[in-house]
């Protein structure tokens, strides 16, 4: 379920990443000496980890069946007390029958979602350089992994901002008082067209959010300015709410750019409070999402090339997740899409898992 960058569509040759590579190497070399000198007891010292997710899904969208198998390995390499090198790749095979019938066929796509170096400078600031997930809204950064998302179909507005950016980012979170935490992110990205796995747009942007621990509510705003081509602005709002009295979570986003606008709201409710069939019910989660997309100032062909609907679209989706064990769930959902291009049914069934392996000893003698 990928989409394309603006630079993929507009074929504009632009400079290389040389400047940002210099920043990366400089920061890495300046910080490496104190990082490696940091002292942490062996029993608490972070160990490198290979984690990530794997899954297999069958999507039937408007009668078109897609068999989708994917694995998304995440490498976490902590260095000293302040550094973290992290990377996520995506290997996804999507197989469909050709028009007119025949056996399933398709290609396996390989994508580098992020490969970044984080320097936790102090309690208020983390500096990130490299390729990172674009912090616009919350879905792309926090809810994208298949073992996290409650419904496997991407929100319609997800392609309104680039998935990954190549450059530098400053971010952090800190309490402003006993009842509120503030989090922020600002970033600058260079255009990259040399390799499809490292594609990014030239842009700047930021996100700011407030988390209220009492009601467990987070709200925030995002902004992004494209520094190429039409030099357009995009902005968005997001929220996440985890009621204290219910085993439920709610998320939502609104986004607007010249390519379109729209919103989605989802909720997932774990049936752990149901009084019958408790063994099964506490493993079962019901989820729903409502969303809408409004076409922007680009043609239908351009929109579809970016992964956006070609016309105004409404969609509702309902699904079930059954947690077989920690990090392993079976999922099924049904959705109905209403569009002037034609209405469609969206079926999904599959299984998603999370894995985590230490790349070193976790037990000290």
């Amino acid at each position, binding site marked *: 379920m990928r989409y394309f960058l603006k630079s993929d569509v507009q074929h504009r040759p632009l400079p290389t990443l040389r400047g940002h590579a210099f*920043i990366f190497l*400089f*920061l890495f070399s*300046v*910080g490496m*000496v*104190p990082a490696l000198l940091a*002292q*942490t*007891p062996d*029993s*608490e*010292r*972070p*160990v*490198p980890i290979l*984690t990530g997710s794997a899954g297999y899904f069958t999507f039937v969208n408007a009668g078109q069946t897609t068999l989708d198998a994917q694995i998304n390995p995440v490498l*976490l390499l*902590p260095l000293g*007390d*302040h550094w*973290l090198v*992290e990377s996520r790749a995506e290997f996804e095979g999507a197989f469909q029958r050709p028009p007119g019938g025949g056996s399933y066929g398709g290609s396996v796509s390989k994508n580098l979602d992020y490969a970044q170096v984080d*320097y*936790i*400078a*102090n*309690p208020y600031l983390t500096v990130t*350089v490299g390729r990172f997930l674009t912090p616009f809204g*919350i879905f792309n950064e926090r*809810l994208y992994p298949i*073992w*996290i998302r409650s419904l496997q179909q991407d929100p319609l507005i997800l392609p309104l901002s680039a998935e990954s950016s190549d450059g*530098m980012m*400053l971010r*952090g*979170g*800190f*309490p402003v008082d006993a009842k509120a*935490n503030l989090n922020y*992110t*600002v970033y*600058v990205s260079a255009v990259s067209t040399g390799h499809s796995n490292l594609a990014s747009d030239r842009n*700047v942007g930021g996100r700011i*959010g407030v988390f209220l*621990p009492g009601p*467990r509510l*987070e709200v925030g705003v995002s902004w992004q300015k494209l*520094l190429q081509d039409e030099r357009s602005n995009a902005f968005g709002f997001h929220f*996440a709410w*985890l009621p204290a009295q219910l085993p439920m*979570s709610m998320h939502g986003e609104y986004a607007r750019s010249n390519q379109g606008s729209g919103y989605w709201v989802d909720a997932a409710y*774990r049936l752990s409070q149901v009084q019958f069939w408790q063994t099964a019910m506490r493993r079962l989660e019901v989820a729903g999402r409502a969303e809408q997309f409004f076409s922007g100032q680009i043609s239908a062909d351009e929109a579809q090339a970016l992964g956006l609907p070609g016309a105004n679209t409404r969609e509702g989706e309902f699904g079930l997740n059954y*947690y077989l064990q*920690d990090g392993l769930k079976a999922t099924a959902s049904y959705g109905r899409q209403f569009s002037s291009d034609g209405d469609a049914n969206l079926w999904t069934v599959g299984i998603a898992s*999370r894995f*985590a392996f*230490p790349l070193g*000893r*976790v037990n000290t003698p």
Partner: protein
Amino acid sequence: MRIKITILTFLLALGSVLWAASSPRSSESPNIPIAHSQEEADTMRVDGERRFHANCGRCHAAPHKFPPRMMATIVRHMRVRATITDEDMRLVLYYMTQ
């Protein structure tokens, strides 16, 4: 304009790196906090559990506990990804390693 933004971002990051590299490490080490009494340990565990559910539960179901050295890596990763606060990170790490 974009050159100015790049330079400003770079200078901010460089200053932060140099400042942090010259700061005493004991005050900001992200190690698991130490409880000095049973009462303090109980308080930290309860507070850590509350913060764990409030921060981590906003996005995903609660995972089982991993060994302390793995949890230290995972919590550092989530601190960056979810921009959770330094205090929340320490207490969540304490809770998840007890």
